């Protein structure tokens, strides 16, 4: 009897321990966890998972790759080096992107959220499909400085990855298509749609007078570019910022080849903006207050939708910021599915 009890307790302890271990390593993703749910009021996604069927194993492989510095040439830098979960996958407090050997890039790291509602990526829109976006950071000499050929070689040599790819694709092929598609399974499911703003719109939360006033002002002054519910119209516009001569970044013009597109940049979505500082394509503004100061009385070179904003009073700026803070989505920021799975 005593022995039986002992056995029972040791078994129970084992199960508990394994349970915690599994939880800790993030190995708890189920089929339900990777179901694509389109939030109410959101349009039809522009990225289609039709040719990239999401599975728990695929999502978990994408997640492991996202957090693994194996993607960089000196195994120092992973996607999460610049895309931090608590900042909606932007790079908190870093104006420009970082890379191996302390190298500095030319643009501010954008948040990763609601990506499947875009069909172009990067500040200049140069990338035309979610799946091929990671080729940029992987191969950029100022970021991961690696080649796709070598990444694939490293993954093929790694017994754990051989197993993980096999679990997803049921055969032993490892190639860039599969690497990129599993990454898209992971990043494509990063959906932020449960901020206080969302709950307020759905009638499940309240706004203060200041927040209500901020929303009203936002709709009147900002929403022609930052269109709800994604807070972007996916266009490229000039916000009248004086070009930084040390970066000499012509933005959209470089990829479109059209002169009039020079110095235009993507209208970014604003969800979780509280966490994604510093702001603008080159991270030149540290605080939301600086951004609002810029858009109040913007230079004449700015887009007409910006110049027509005119002057914003101190109170108006404060109210708009109060509203912007309601876009913070704690459920997304602390979603365990997107956490670092840890490495053995």
């Amino acid at each position: 009897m005593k022995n039986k009890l002992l056995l029972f307790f040791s078994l129970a302890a084992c199960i508990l321990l394994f349970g915690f271990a599994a939880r800790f390593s993030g190995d708890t993703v189920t089929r339900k966890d990777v179901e694509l749910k389109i939030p109410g009021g959101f349009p039809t996604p522009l990225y289609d998972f039709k040719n990239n069927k999401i599975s728990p194993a695929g999502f978990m492989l994408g997640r492991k790759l996202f957090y693994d510095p194996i993607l960089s040439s000196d195994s120092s830098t992973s996607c999460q080096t610049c895309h931090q979960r608590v900042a909606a996958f932007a790079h908190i407090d870093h104006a420009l992107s970082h890379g191996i050997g302390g190298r500095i890039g030319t643009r501010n790291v954008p948040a990763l959220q609601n990506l499947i509602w875009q069909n172009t990526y990067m500040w200049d829109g140069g990338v035309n499909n979610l799946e091929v976006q990671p080729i940029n950071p992987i191969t950029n000499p100022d970021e991961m400085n690696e080649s796709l050929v070598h990444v694939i070689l490293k993954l093929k040599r790694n017994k754990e990855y051989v197993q993980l790819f096999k679990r997803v694709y049921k055969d032993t092929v490892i190639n860039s298509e599969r690497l990129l598609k599993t990454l898209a399974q992971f990043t494509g499911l990063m959906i932020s749609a449960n901020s206080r703003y969302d709950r307020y719109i759905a009638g499940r939360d309240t706004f203060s007078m200041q927040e209500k006033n901020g929303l009203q002002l936002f709709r009147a002054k900002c929403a022609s570019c930052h269109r709800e519910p994604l807070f972007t119209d996916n266009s490229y516009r000039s916000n009248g910022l004086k070009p930084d001569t040390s970066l000499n970044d012509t933005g959209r013009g470089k990829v479109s080849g059209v002169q009039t597109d020079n110095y235009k940049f993507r209208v970014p979505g604003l969800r979780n903006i509280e966490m994604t500082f510093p702001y603008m394509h080159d991270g030149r503004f540290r605080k939301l207050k600086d951004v609002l100061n810029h858009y109040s009385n913007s230079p004449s070179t700015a887009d007409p939708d910006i110049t027509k904003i005119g002057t914003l009073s101190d109170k108006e700026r404060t109210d708009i910021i109060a509203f912007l803070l309601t876009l913070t989505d704690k459920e997304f920021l602390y979603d365990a599915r997107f956490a670092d799975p840890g490495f053995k």
Partner: protein
Amino acid sequence: MIKKFQLLTGLIILLSPLYTNAQHSKGMLSIAFKHVVDGAALQLDSAVYKNALGQTFTVSKFKYYISNIQLEKAGGKKITVPGYFLINEEEEASKRLMLNSIPEGEYISMQFMIGIDSLHNCSGAQSGALDPANGMFWAWNSGYVFLKLEGKAAASASPGKIFEYHIGGYTAPANCIRSISLAFEKPLRISRETTSSVTIKVNAAEVLRAPVTIDFSALSSVTDLHNATTIADNYTDMFSIATDEK
């Protein structure tokens, strides 16, 4: 066991008419790409050539995409061979395409695209010839590089005296997709169970001339949309059917 065997035999007998039928109406076509610089065979790095301005150069890389291959019969009927092919001077096997299942008959001309259609330029991650790891994909401005010609020229102003022409782009104003049409001197006969062959001569010198003569000292690097269509227009006439050999 015997039952299984009988079932299998039965199945084979049942399906064999279909199989033989397919065999009877289809043949194979082997297309060889023979790379030259004017009169001389292309030899990477070692051979020295001259452009139209008399500037000397060597070639270190020559690769390009062929797709949407079509064969046309007299009367205009066309068949399309699916697939994307990356032809690379460095890889012998890439310079010979073996096309199966070509319907029997006599064909008077062939057409193909140099480049990749717009749909497959924005279809996300792909494999095989379209694997971005082949080094023919632009990450910063998504899309395939349709042609690469690289080498060295004494007149070049680039560091290391190199020249590099990476040509791609599938949208206006820098759409570099070009269609090629080549007429066969005498009709190409495709017969069942045999392999016919065509050799296409590809003159890399044409990348550098007509309509625009490329001066290495003025334009040694084209690696984005700027000047891309100029080079694309140049190489549109680099293909011809080699007549003097198999």
